[in-house]
């Protein structure tokens, strides 16, 4: 269970949100919605612990995430605007180094399988910078099938994806939720039925 208590965040003298509280339970998909500049990314980054709120706390299973980082990060998968892949390394290298960092051991065959699943057959050894934006996105997304994390925090995961890619991602979101996982995602396109049931959380733009 991921819980935010009384979060306040301000950027450039503008309060994005104040006293924001929300609870996401296992087997739940929270769809965070709001206009540009409403603070969706800021909220997600606070929920991951990458940035700290002006006030308030984030709790995972009742424990403050700043107190028990390792416990939380073992269960967290965050995909932000930036793909987190190095352009001069291949998809395969990027993923295997990432897995080593996150202390997940996966046989190489599984890596090939996942890359095939996301539609990157034959491109495993190509430096990521030569791939298209959508393909780079797919490399980043393949982490969803590799790290057994309970909490997914996805910032605009559908950007640059084609129709098939969107469908694949929505299906995997539904599967994750049915396995008892927890997802928080933002998107400017409404989620389709493939993504399963979801709760909408609106973030208003404040002046």
């Amino acid at each position, binding site marked *: 269970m991921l819980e935010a208590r009384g979060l306040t965040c301000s950027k450039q003298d503008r309060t994005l949100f104040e006293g924001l509280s929300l609870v996401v339970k296992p087997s739940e998909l929270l769809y965070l919605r709001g206009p540009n500049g409403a603070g969706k990314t800021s909220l997600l*980054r606070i929920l*991951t*612990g*990458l*940035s*700290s709120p002006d006030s308030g706390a984030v709790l995972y299973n009742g424990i403050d995430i700043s107190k028990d*980082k*390792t416990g939380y*990060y*073992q269960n*967290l998968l*965050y995909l*932000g*605007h*930036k*793909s*987190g*892949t*190095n*352009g*001069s*390394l291949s998809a395969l*290298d990027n993923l295997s*180094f*990432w897995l*080593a*960092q*996150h*202390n997940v051991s996966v046989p190489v065959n599984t890596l090939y399988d996942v890359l095939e699943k996301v539609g990157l057959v034959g491109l495993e050894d190509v*430096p990521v910078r030569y791939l298209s934006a959508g393909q780079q996105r797919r490399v980043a997304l393949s982490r969803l099938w590799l790290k057994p994390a309970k909490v997914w925090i996805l910032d605009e995961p559908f950007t640059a994806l084609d129709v098939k890619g969107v469908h694949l991602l929505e299906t995997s979101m539904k599967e994750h939720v049915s396995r008892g996982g927890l997802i928080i995602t933002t998107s400017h396109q409404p989620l389709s039925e493939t993504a399963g049931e979801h709760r909408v959380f609106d973030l208003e733009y404040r002046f």
Partner: protein
Amino acid sequence: MSLYQGIFKRDMQVAFKQKAELVQPLMFLLMVVTLFPLGVSPSPDTLQRIGPGVIWIAAILSSLMAMERLFRDDFQDGSLEQYMLSGMPLPAVSAVKVAAHWLVSFVPLLLLSPLLAMFLNLTVDMYIALVLTLLLGTPLLSLIGAIAVGLTVGLQKGGVLLALLLIPVFIPLLIFATSAVDSAALQLPYHAQLAIIAAMLLLAAAFAPFAIAYSLKVSQN
């Protein structure tokens, strides 16, 4: 593959795939050192007098060029975020990255140093002292530089600020290093200067990883 080995291997791979960035500071260093005799005077005595200073100044300036590479790409492509969310202690990650950076940007300089010493007519004693100061001093450049890179990595044009932050910090190192080589030229002992540089290095090795980790966290905010 252990956690830290993985980071080290990755950084080495990335460095060797970006060969231009790897060679650029070395070319700069070579150019500065070869232009000095033409600009100042090619007389062997003058070169021997200014030699140690020229090599050290060129090393510091060329290291500034390579310094940004330490975290810039990782910050821009989001790898740094993923490091922070991996649960690994960030100071240890920073230390490994600094070690990899030192290996690819300063070890080639150490390998070039005999050539530079010959260009500038250094004696064997002076050259030994120069190598010792470089061995102790360049890891210090990497460690302290990394703190400043961590602080400026989120800025658009961080390079100028980086130089402004670092040059004053490097001045003591430059003074002690060149004074050690000068002492060697006069056949005097230079243990004291080496000891001071070593002390600075040990202090930086103990505290810099934490400062780097903190500065990276600040840049993420």
